């Protein structure tokens, strides 16, 4: 199978502090990868590099056959193909949920308004908040907002979805409704890279687990093997603390 994301020897610094050290990573289409690790290990930075919300200084990142480099047009093209869901939802508060979902398809993909609204309603139905379409983000609960954010990303019909700790800012009882949507998405065959501490979710959907610490990929293994038989001591320690 071909690769849809390829990272080769990626290095990144914030000033003098090295956040990513020689990261190699390959993702095939439809693969689901969960990245975990202690805070400050560079996992968020890593997925933010994949749609270039952060710049890497060394190495190559190739997404869907296009190398991420200075060229702005390339970056915009890749961002349109890569959906991202943030910890803080980042819905646009001045627009209704429906407008949140149709804005980018209309202005970036140049979809006619009517068609964009159909796509939006389809995706809002999929995340089960179609009845909230005309409300504003401030009127929704955290779980609903995060589902709306997922729908917004899906409206661009991305090939890849990145999740940056999507449930970390949610109340415990709202986590499940968001995870359910993500499981549904995974079963639909989406390529997903998820940074999360939800190990139950990881066990259910992930093909591969990646454990990061201090900017390095410490362990990369099939999900079952990762949980039952981790190789490195650092992974064992981490797992013993969160499970």
């Amino acid at each position: 199978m071909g690769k849809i994301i390829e990272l080769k020897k990626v290095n990144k610094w914030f000033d003098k502090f090295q956040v990513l050290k020689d990261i190699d990573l390959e993702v095939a289409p439809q693969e689901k990868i969960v990245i975990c690790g202690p805070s400050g290990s560079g996992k968020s930075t890593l997925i933010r590099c994949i749609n270039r919300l952060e710049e890497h200084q060394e190495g190559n990142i190739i997404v869907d056959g296009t190398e991420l480099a200075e060229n702005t047009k390339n970056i915009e093209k890749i961002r349109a193909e890569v959906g991202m869901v943030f910890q803080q939802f980042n819905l646009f508060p001045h627009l209704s949920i429906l407008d949140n979902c149709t804005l980018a398809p209309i202005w970036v993909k140049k979809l006619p308004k009517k068609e964009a609204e159909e796509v939006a309603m389809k995706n809002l139905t999929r995340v089960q908040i179609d009845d909230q379409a005309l409300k504003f983000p401030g009127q929704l609960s955290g779980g609903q907002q995060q589902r709306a954010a997922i729908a917004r990303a899906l409206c661009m019909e991305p090939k890849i979805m990145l999740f940056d700790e999507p449930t970390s800012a949610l109340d415990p009882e709202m986590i499940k409704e968001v995870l359910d949507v993500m499981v549904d998405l995974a079963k639909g065959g989406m390529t997903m890279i998820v940074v999360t501490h939800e190990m139950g979710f990881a066990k259910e959907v992930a093909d591969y687990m990646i454990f990061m610490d201090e900017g390095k990929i410490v362990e990369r293994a099939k999900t079952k093997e990762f949980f039952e038989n981790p190789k490195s001591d650092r992974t064992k320690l981490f797992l013993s603390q969160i499970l």
Partner: protein
Amino acid sequence: MYGLYPDTEQWRINTAFLILFAVVAVSFFVSEKLKKYFILFLVFVFPFLGIKLISGGSFGLEYVESAAWGGLSLTFIISAFAILFCFPIGVILALGRRSSLPAIKYISIGFIELWRGVPLITVLFMSAVMFPMFLPDGTFIDKLIRVLIAITLFEAAYMAEVVRGGLQALPKGQYEAAKSLGMGYWRMNALIILPQALKLVIPGIANTLLALVKDTPLIFVVGLMELAGMIGLAKTNPKWLGMAMEGYVFAGLVFWIICYAMSRYSQNLEKKLSTER
């Protein structure tokens, strides 16, 4: 009301303002869709139409030089033009100051700090007295236009800082979300960032624009007489001797009415645009 504008031609000012009021009044009653065209007309067509009507010089209208313009109509003309143009320039400067391109950033900073650091009176003197000296012989820019440009740029610098305050108040996540959906710089700013930032700073914008209206009397220093200046002139007229107090109270009242109306409008706008966060 009309200053030194020739009595026989005063209907032209009347017509210009009548058209303005008529268009504004009608625009309150038409549907949202038509309203867009009314606003476009008011912003892009009417100012030039109005000026042409008042200054004349073609279509069989007698030319009236701008030195003869004055009174309340001049107050309106200067305020309206300065507000109209200082706003977009201010927004562009604010974006420029936050640009990642060093050249644009430093030009914006230089421009803002230069205009902000100079008193308006100095700017007016420069535009009226000094500036023509630097022009090559034979070229001539009307004094009113020079003064208008000066006020506009002066206020644009203030506007830029107000808008920048709004830009900085937005969480970084809004920029990232817009980018992650594939929006480029212009779309991101036009669709996501500015609508939110401008809404946040409506009180600050209203503040700046009110100050602008109240600064218009300063143009008397270069010999242009708007409402307050006209009263200063009228009180020396033998017929109005001893009426200075009444005149100035009247001027104060008129300014208060204008400013209070603007302030109410900004409050309404704030209410209308507020969406729960």
